[in-house]
């Protein structure tokens, strides 16, 4: 029997630092001292450095490549071209979207910044010298940067490698620059509903091309050990296990001989999901030279060549009764995928989960068609801090609602309110085929309205409009409303895979004899704080203090197979696996406790950090005691040790939601804006660490602010990327970033073991329409229906100018 004075139960709970507490992050001790270990920190004896010759042209035939002068430069070891990779069949590689992509330019280049040759040298300066000395003879070809022009009959053929008329990975291609048509919903019923409706609003909503631009660029270090036959690959990988499998399939090296390590990652936001030529070239160069080879892109290469996001032209129609009840929604998307279809989506979803675009509303019928198109722009189409194409969907529906409100001459908040899916409708079957797990939209909306003082804001706005019209003021007020519903946590293996790998995730737990533990997961943190929060889930599940649990990710030799971190899937999928593995530990611990306490298994129950005899709480065994017993006693019918592994295949996605309101002042004459208030209410189900959630929301809102107000990847007509440095590509500083107010409701997911839904991407999904709607709303009284993002100073000024407000 235990002798010590028992701790108060609340103290025991608090000692665990389990779910629901704002545990300080364990990662920070290293990071604040400069002791991170990012890819560029990996240094190996004899390591070489690789760098790319890139195309200055967006579309050109390559007549010749002369590498002789480069090879003569001191320090240059090798120069690889497509001709060198072709015998290995590595001059092209498969993309995640079922297309293929040139690793090094094979006969022609299709976008500015495309990889043409790979120079391997003793250091990065010698590599740069080598790049200068490579002579490439280009013959310029006509350039297409407009996806609509790409589909013209006489448009130049971009992808000469694709057989004319042959189907693509996602069905028939109706034009030589067409990639796929993907459809969801019932087209006929939707057209009928819209054509016969009282009110119809029609609009083209463009979500411009942008880029995730994590502060750390992409990179890798490949080390082929010719003696052991083992390849070790460090890299900025959001999905290290998938990289291992792909590397094995591409190289022919057996998978057990490949070890992929994602060390610390300096932000990902989707940019590090893709497989890039640099990764492949570093591997080949290591095999060729027998030495470790590092490749780290610079910022220009990152913005110009590794995966962009968005670039969706969304033509929509939405219909309603004259009272404002929505009757149908239709959307046709022209999706600019660039030169190769390298979108990062689950295989069966070439437009991601865009068909979540009915949003938070009970829309009886809907149809979506997405045409993927090739252009002379960089490949990609990753989910920049959102689940696959979900931010495009949220922006589309939240703009269409605003346009419909204008058409109906109704308040946009009220229009949302009368169309929300009601709490009693969950689980809700959407017209486009999703089953929303849970939600309470009205409660969230009412809370948000009250928090910002919505009615007073509308009064103030009206007064400012009047003052403007009287010539007393040049300022307007915009109230940007958004109620978004996300779809995250891909996903059920039955319909979600990446290159054939089902999108489950995993956790393996080992409890040590002295009662501490290590947990390894198939995911990888890029700043989300997994080492902190996953330990909290476990602490609550198995009654061991979070501070005594090490969480490890990113090493494929030690971590169980998982599909990685993106699309807010870590908490919904790996978090569930963690809870389930914890429950396996607990089940075994229960048997051990019962044996130690000499009672039947059913006569003990779990209580915070121990098993107690039912009805006799003074008789108990702590998890620490149980762990020790698991290793030092022969317990009849129970294997020694205390370990568990869980591979979790979620039964459904999770559907986080939120109500965001942005209050913005706009100066009509200068086009400048001031965000007076940004209120963000998130419902991510069960909250694991409120501090981390708030941090995620702040960060996502700032990315959303950037995207809505100035950030874009822009090209000129001959395909020059005009935004290839941080001088042109907008990242807000601390000075211009708004202040945020966060709030929450809690509607747990009914199918998730701990009810959590994921939150990291919600603020980007909800933030973009909130900021953009604020700009639009400011000009509503002056007749603005739609203007394109980003709403930088020039575009806002231009909007006011076109509305005749400078007259």
């Amino acid at each position, binding site marked *: 029997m235990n002798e010590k004075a028992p701790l108060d139960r609340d103290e025991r709970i608090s000692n665990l630092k389990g779910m629901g507490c704002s545990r*300080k992050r364990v990662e920070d001790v290293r990071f604040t*001292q400069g*002791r991170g270990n990012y890819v560029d920190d990996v240094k190996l004896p004899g390591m070489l450095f690789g760098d790319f010759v890139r195309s200055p042209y967006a579309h050109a035939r390559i007549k010749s490549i002369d590498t002789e002068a480069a090879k003569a430069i001191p320090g240059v070891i090798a120069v690889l071209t497509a001709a060198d990779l072709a015998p290995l069949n590595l001059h092209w590689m498969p993309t995640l979207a079922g297309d293929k992509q040139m690793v090094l330019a094979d006969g022609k280049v299709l976008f500015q910044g495309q990889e043409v040759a790979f120079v391997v040298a003793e250091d990065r300066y010698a590599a740069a010298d080598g790049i200068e000395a490579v002579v490439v003879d280009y013959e310029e070809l006509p350039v297409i940067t407009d996806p609509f022009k790409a589909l013209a009959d006489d448009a130049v053929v971009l992808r000469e490698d694709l057989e004319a008329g042959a189907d693509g990975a996602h069905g028939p291609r109706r034009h030589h620059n067409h990639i796929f048509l993907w459809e969801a919903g019932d087209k006929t019923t939707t057209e009928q509903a819209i054509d016969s409706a009282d009110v119809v609003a029609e609009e083209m909503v463009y979500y411009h091309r942008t880029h995730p631009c994590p502060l*750390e660029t992409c990179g890798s270090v490949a080390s082929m050990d010719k003696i052991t036959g083992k390849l070790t690959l460090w890299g900025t990988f959001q999905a290290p296990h998938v990289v291992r499998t792909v590397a094995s399939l591409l190289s022919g090296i057996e998978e057990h001989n490949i070890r992929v390590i994602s060390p610390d990652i*300096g932000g990902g936001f989707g940019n590090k999901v893709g497989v890039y030529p640099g990764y492949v070239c570093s591997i080949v160069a290591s095999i060729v030279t027998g030495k470790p080879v590092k490749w780290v892109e610079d910022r220009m290469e990152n913005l110009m060549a590794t995966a962009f996001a968005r670039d969706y032209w969304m033509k929509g129609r939405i219909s309603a009764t004259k009272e404002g009840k929505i009757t149908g929604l239709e959307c046709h998307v022209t999706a600019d995928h660039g030169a190769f279809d390298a979108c990062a989506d689950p295989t069966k979803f070439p437009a991601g989960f865009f068909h979540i675009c009915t949003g938070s509303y009970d829309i009886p019928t809907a149809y979506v068609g997405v045409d993927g198109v090739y252009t002379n722009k960089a490949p990609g189409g990753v989910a920049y801090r959102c689940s696959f194409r979900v931010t495009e969907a949220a922006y589309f529906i939240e703009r269409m609602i605003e346009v419909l409100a204008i058409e109906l001459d109704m308040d946009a908040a009220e229009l949302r309110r009368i169309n929300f899916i009601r709490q009693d409708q969950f689980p809700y079957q959407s017209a486009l085929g999703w089953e929303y797990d849970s939600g309470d939209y009205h409660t969230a909306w009412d809370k948000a309205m009250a928090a910002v003082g919505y009615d007073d804001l509308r009064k103030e706005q009206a007064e400012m409009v009047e003052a403007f019209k009287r010539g007393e003021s040049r300022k307007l007020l915009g109230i940007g409303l958004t109620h978004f519903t996300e779809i995250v946590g891909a996903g059920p293996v039955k319909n979600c895979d990446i290159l054939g790998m089902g999108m489950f995730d995993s956790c393996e737990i080992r409890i040590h004899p002295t009662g501490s533990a290590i947990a390894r997961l198939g995911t990888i943190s890029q700043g989300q704080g997994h080492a902190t929060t996953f330990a909290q889930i476990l602490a609550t599940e198995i009654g061991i203090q979070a501070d005594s649990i090490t969480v490890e990710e990113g090493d494929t030799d030690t971590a169980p197979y998982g599909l990685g971190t993106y699309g807010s899937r870590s908490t919904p999928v790996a978090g569930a696996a963690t809870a389930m593995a914890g429950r396996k530990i607990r089940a075994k611990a229960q048997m051990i406790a019962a044996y130690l306490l000499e009672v039947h298994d059913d006569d003990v129950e779990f209580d915070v950090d121990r098993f107690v005899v039912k009805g006799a709480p003074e008789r108990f065994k702590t998890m620490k005691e149980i762990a020790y017993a698991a290793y030092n006693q022969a317990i009849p019918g129970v294997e020694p040790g205390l370990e568990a592994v869980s591979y979790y295949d979620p039964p459904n996605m999770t559907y986080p939601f939120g109500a965001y309101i942005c209050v913005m002042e706009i100066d009509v004459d200068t086009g400048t804006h001031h965000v007076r208030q940004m209120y963000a209410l998130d419902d991510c189900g069960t909250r694991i660490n409120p*501090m981390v959630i708030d941090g995620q929301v702040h960060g996502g809102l700032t990315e959303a602010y950037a995207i809505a107000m100035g950030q874009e990847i822009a090209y000129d007509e001959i395909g020059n990327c005009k935004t290839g*440095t941080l001088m042109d590509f907008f990242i807000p500083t601390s000075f211009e970033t708004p202040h945020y107010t966060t709030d929450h409701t809690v509607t747990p997911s009914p199918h998730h073991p701990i009810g959590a839904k994921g939150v990291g991407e919600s603020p980007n999904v909800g933030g973009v329409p909130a900021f953009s709607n604020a700009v639009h709303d400011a000009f509503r009284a002056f007749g603005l229906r739609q203007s394109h993002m980003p709403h930088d100073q020039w575009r806002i000024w231009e909007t006011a100018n076109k509305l005749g407000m400078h007259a």
Partner: protein
Amino acid sequence: MKKTPIELNVNGQTRTVLVEPRELLIHTLREQLELTGPHVGCETSHCGACTVEIDGRSVKSCTLFAVQAAGAEITTVEGLASPDALHVLQTSFREHHGLQCGYCTPGMITRAHRLLQENPNPTEEDVRFGLAGNLCRCTGYQNIVKSVLAAAEELNTQKEAAQA
């Protein structure tokens, strides 16, 4: 290209390194002196991940040649903590969740350290303006600002206690 020996005083230690005239200070610090605090995030002096202190000023070490820093006193994030304890800014960033991926953090803390020497009693606006040369993609700055303001208060309290 010919290499030249130069002396660099980094975090209180003098080291002789051989550099090409074109070698950037960030590469000397990272590759030769094996520091992992200063990071490379861009090549246009915008992101500030490479921020170090040189002779009492915040400098972006990715746009300075190593030879330009010869003989100067250089401090990186690795030089802020004392042997016994972390610097107040380091604990404050953890306490107030002023970092996520950690990539901007060394530069951010190094800049904040100098900012608080320049202005020991900053307002929120002072901090936001003073850190505008350092980009963060994760935090939205709100908790960074909070961390720096809290550190300023703590440092002032410590100073008062020492004077009392």
